[in-house]
């Protein structure tokens, strides 16, 4: 024994045991490490999967919440005096691509807001603001080896621009259109003064729904968009060529994607007398509901109770959202009251 060796104790013994692990310790350490790594891997995998599910779920609920907000804003302000359209067109083959077809559900209606402009001792002043709004659900199908398979659904929303063509006029009568703001009521004021300008509501309020959604394409002068002449000087234009495009064109141009994760969609309503109407994909339907005058007469002067009964009082929307990556899906259903008394439902 040589006590002068490095690491030797005073008796010259070298503590070899402290320099490393024995084989048993090494094996135990490795085994323990493997077990722990396995547990950690499993835990992290589960956490990752759980995180993905939770994230997707939160995301789906967030999308549903946005949709519900749109629904509340749009249907909660639905103008009862104007036309309401809803139609479903199932399985329409794309003319340019025969291996693709679409289901479409669209709802078009006019909403109104009446913001408070001023208050005085004589009362309050409101300005009405009208927009055509369209909700359009499109689900695409693809022919895969002779079998049609859905490849996704999208919901679009568009809103016509109420002030898309207004200007300051020195002589408002030069812009007196043949059609009044609220359909043919003789002498009805078509324009209003706001912030020092004469303001014209360009979307054409339409009470008669019998001609279908395409009738929105006629502009407020009753002309289609082909007569628009944007090059003519404003005050020299005829009323027919003042520059107002059709409302359907406007809806097309303002369309925005709300969500592209909608796998199915259904919309319906309960009318004033409690009757239920539902549009769902796969079933063709075309509903046209006339608006009502404030004096509760129909567009042709008919007694309006039948029309009143058909007006929606509760709008219902149901849809399924799915995450394409994980396949996680959640169905949602919301209902919103439109202006008016709530009907008795489901007697």
């Amino acid at each position, binding site marked *: 024994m040589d006590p002068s060796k490095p690491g030797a104790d005073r008796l010259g013994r070298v503590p070899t045991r402290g320099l490393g692990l024995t084989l048993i310790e090494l094996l135990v350490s490795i085994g323990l490490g493997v077990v722990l790594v396995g547990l950690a891997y499993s835990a992290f995998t589960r956490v990752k999967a759980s995180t993905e599910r939770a994230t997707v779920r939160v995301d789906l609920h967030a999308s549903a919440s946005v949709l519900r907000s749109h629904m509340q804003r749009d249907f909660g302000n639905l103008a009862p005096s104007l036309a309401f359209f809803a139609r479903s067109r199932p399985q329409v083959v794309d003319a340019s691509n025969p291996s693709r077809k679409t289901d479409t559900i669209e709802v078009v209606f006019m909403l109104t807001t009446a913001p408070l402009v001023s208050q005085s001792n004589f009362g309050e002043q409101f300005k009405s603001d009208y927009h055509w709004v369209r909700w359009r659900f499109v689900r695409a199908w693809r022919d895969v080896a002779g079998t049609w398979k859905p490849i996704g659904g999208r919901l679009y929303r568009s809103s016509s621009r109420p002030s898309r063509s207004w200007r300051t006029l020195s002589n408002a009568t030069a812009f007196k259109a043949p059609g009044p703001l609220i359909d043919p009521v003789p002498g009805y004021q078509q324009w209003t003064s706001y912030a020092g300008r004469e303001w014209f509501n360009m979307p054409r309020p339409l009470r008669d729904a019998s001609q279908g959604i395409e009738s929105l394409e006629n502009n407020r002068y009753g002309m289609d968009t082909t007569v628009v002449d944007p090059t003519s000087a404003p005050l020299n234009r005829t009323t027919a060529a003042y520059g107002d495009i059709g409302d359907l064109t406007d809806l097309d141009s303002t369309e925005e994607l709300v969500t592209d994760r909608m796998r199915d969609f259904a919309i319906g309503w309960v009318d004033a007398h409690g009757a239920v109407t539902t549009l769902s994909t796969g079933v063709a339907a075309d509903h046209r509901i006339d608006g009502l005058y404030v004096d509760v007469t129909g567009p042709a002067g008919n007694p309006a109770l039948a029309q009143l009964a058909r007006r929606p009082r509760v709008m219902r929307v149901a849809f399924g959202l799915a995450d394409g990556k994980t396949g996680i899906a959640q169905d949602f259903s919301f*209902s919103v009251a439109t202006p008016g008394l709530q009907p*008795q439902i489901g007697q």
Partner: protein
Amino acid sequence: MTSAYPPDLPARIPTPSPTRALRSGFTLIEIIASVLLFSLGAMAVIGVVMYGLSSAMKAQAGATAWATALAVVKDPLPLGAVSASNGTLTPWTWTSSGASWSANDGSADPAWTYTSWPLNLASDVLVPDMADPIANNPAIFSLRGAPAVGCAHGWLNGYYVERREQSRASDRIGRATRIVEVRVDVYWASYGAASDGRRLATVTDRVVRQGDL
């Protein structure tokens, strides 16, 4: 006095400490302690992540739960529920070419159950306990049973929803028009354990209902 050391060695020669030599590697105890410490840290991180996710999910769910309650206050029969002749509704099922799915995600529980009442009823239509019917009247809101008159319950938007509606004779304001008091509770619950669920949203309202004129 004799020294304990060999006589040829100086008594105070510094010798390397055995403990210093031991530090050149880890002992098993040290490795186990380190791994356990690491595991604890990892678990803590995972726990924090999961708690954050859970909180985010519940916060978001709270928003849709509130929207669900607002919807059901106005509409006792949300879209998708199919009315049967006995007033009990079957789970909603949407079908189209190549697609068929139901709102209750395969659960055997009914998606939505609703019992109506005639508007022209002259007498009171009262829920026995408007405030807490689950606790005091469990039979009324049993998961599979028919609810009380004017009430509804079921699964909607991933939540368990209960809707209670009552109206007194004095609430009649016309032949077929009356005021009704509505309360909707939305629960975060697993299927089959609605009464144990955590309440996410409660909305109460009074609406004027109109029957066929």
